[in-house]
């Protein structure tokens, strides 16, 4: 699978990653190499495996319990005011 620089840019946008032009070019080449290696999976006959069994997550009762201590959460917050995480303006982007 050949990944072009444009394709790498599109994937980086989906993954919320910033890469400069040189970084994108290098990334495209590395992805091409890794995905070309992965392409060998096409030679495996998986026709007998029509569905991969999904392990279901066991459910639990929805019982209230204490959540994280706000003070401890605040300690790790990059920007915090009045009990909230502060972020740049969201509306009107």
């Amino acid at each position, binding site marked *: 699978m050949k990944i072009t620089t444009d394709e790498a840019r599109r994937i980086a946008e989906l993954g919320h990653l910033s890469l400069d032009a040189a970084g994108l070019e290098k*990334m495209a080449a590395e992805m091409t*190499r890794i*995905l070309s290696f*992965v392409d060998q*999976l096409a030679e*495996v006959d998986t026709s007998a495996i029509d569905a991969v069994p999904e392990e279901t997550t066991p459910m639990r009762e929805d019982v209230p319990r204490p959540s994280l201590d706000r003070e401890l959460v605040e*300690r790790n*917050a990059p920007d915090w005011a009045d009990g909230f995480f502060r972020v*740049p*303006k969201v509306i009107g982007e």
Partner: protein
Amino acid sequence: MSSVLDLPLHEAQEEVSARDYVEASLRAIGERNPQLNAFLHIAREASGAFPIAIKDNIVTTDMPTTCASKILPRFVSPFDATVITKLRAAGAAFPGKTNLDEFAMGSSTEHSAFGAVRNPWDTSRVAGGSSGGSAAAVAARMVPVALGSETGGSVRQPAAFCGIVGLKPTYGRVSRYGLVAFGSGLDQIGIFSKTVRECAHVLGMIAGHDPLDSTTSARAVDDYAADLDRGVRGTRFGVISEAADALQGEIRKNFEDAVEVLRSGGATVQRISIPTIKYAVAVYAIVANAEASANLSRFDGVRYGHRSAGADSVHDLYVKSRGEGFGAEVKRRIMIGTFALSSGYYDAYYGRAQRVREKMRQDFEAAFRSVDLLLTPTAPEAAFKIGAKTADPLTMYLSDVFTTPANLVGIPALAVPSGFDSQKLPLSLQMMGPQFSERMMFRAASFFEKQTCYWKQKPAL
């Protein structure tokens, strides 16, 4: 010079007071860490019955957790991981947090934002990865035991490179609550130790159901040390043909000698084919990275971790914080994973990888109908030189060719020292068993260890 840290855990505890034991460990860390870079954080003091080192992607309330990433500076978790809570209850002391590849992504610990770990047997070589710090810490006798984590061999491969025991338990045997998630369908906390007995002992402390990790099994925890002296008479081993046939030189000879040790103990050995095993690294590259791309979306500069100073919108904040905080390998894996899950490629990559994975699971299931345990070398080579594989990510991934299958099919696997090559670098035998067969694996590995005694050799530092 001999020290209490050369002894297995239980013998050391009889020899010295708890206080002296933990202090000896802190002193050894202080002396040897500058050479090895195994620890990212060293506790000023620690108290408990025995010391255990913790990989720095397992959260602790009394020490920072960095995941060896610049995106998590100064992060201190508001809660302890379940394994930490259990170890505290068992009397453990925590002398420090160990170095790793950033977010456990790598096979050499060279992808740490804080520099590579050096192999105690030859400091020009890697300690393996991603749990290289924990492996080096045990091998260099800084701690008797350590925790690591595995998504594709990150305990067993560094255990092999450092000449110690490394266990990846069955998927669901040990709670991952508080293990910073990488590939949630594969992740499992593992154990490093000098001897099999210490490993069995620690697994007994940390195994079991946890309401905070719904993937943990409700199955009762075994008495893992109960069969350690029972030998291998009658045990049926399978040598995986696809692995054995690919071996060359000293690795091949070492593996054949190891198999012979088991045979001489009264075990039977037969060849077994697992045709899909050669696709494990390719399957892993898609499945693990797809899960990683989703799991690492939480690092966005909003609630914790690095926040870019130059952002003028919330979208810009995400992109810049992640761009500045993540290292090259983490970005590469997020990119591969995002690609594999993206519209138009999902079925051809993620879907196909999952189907091959299911076929591999069926291959293993069939194998375990005729043998009890499967054998391969743990790694296809001994520890490589620092820098030898960093230029080509794919070459690095292939270092995990024998270890990734156990993660993909959810079975337990154990690495046990099998000797040294001509350069005095450790080599290792891997045993894989059916789900929840840890007790049987410990019995077989303990027999092998008693016959060979490689654990008594230690690196000269």
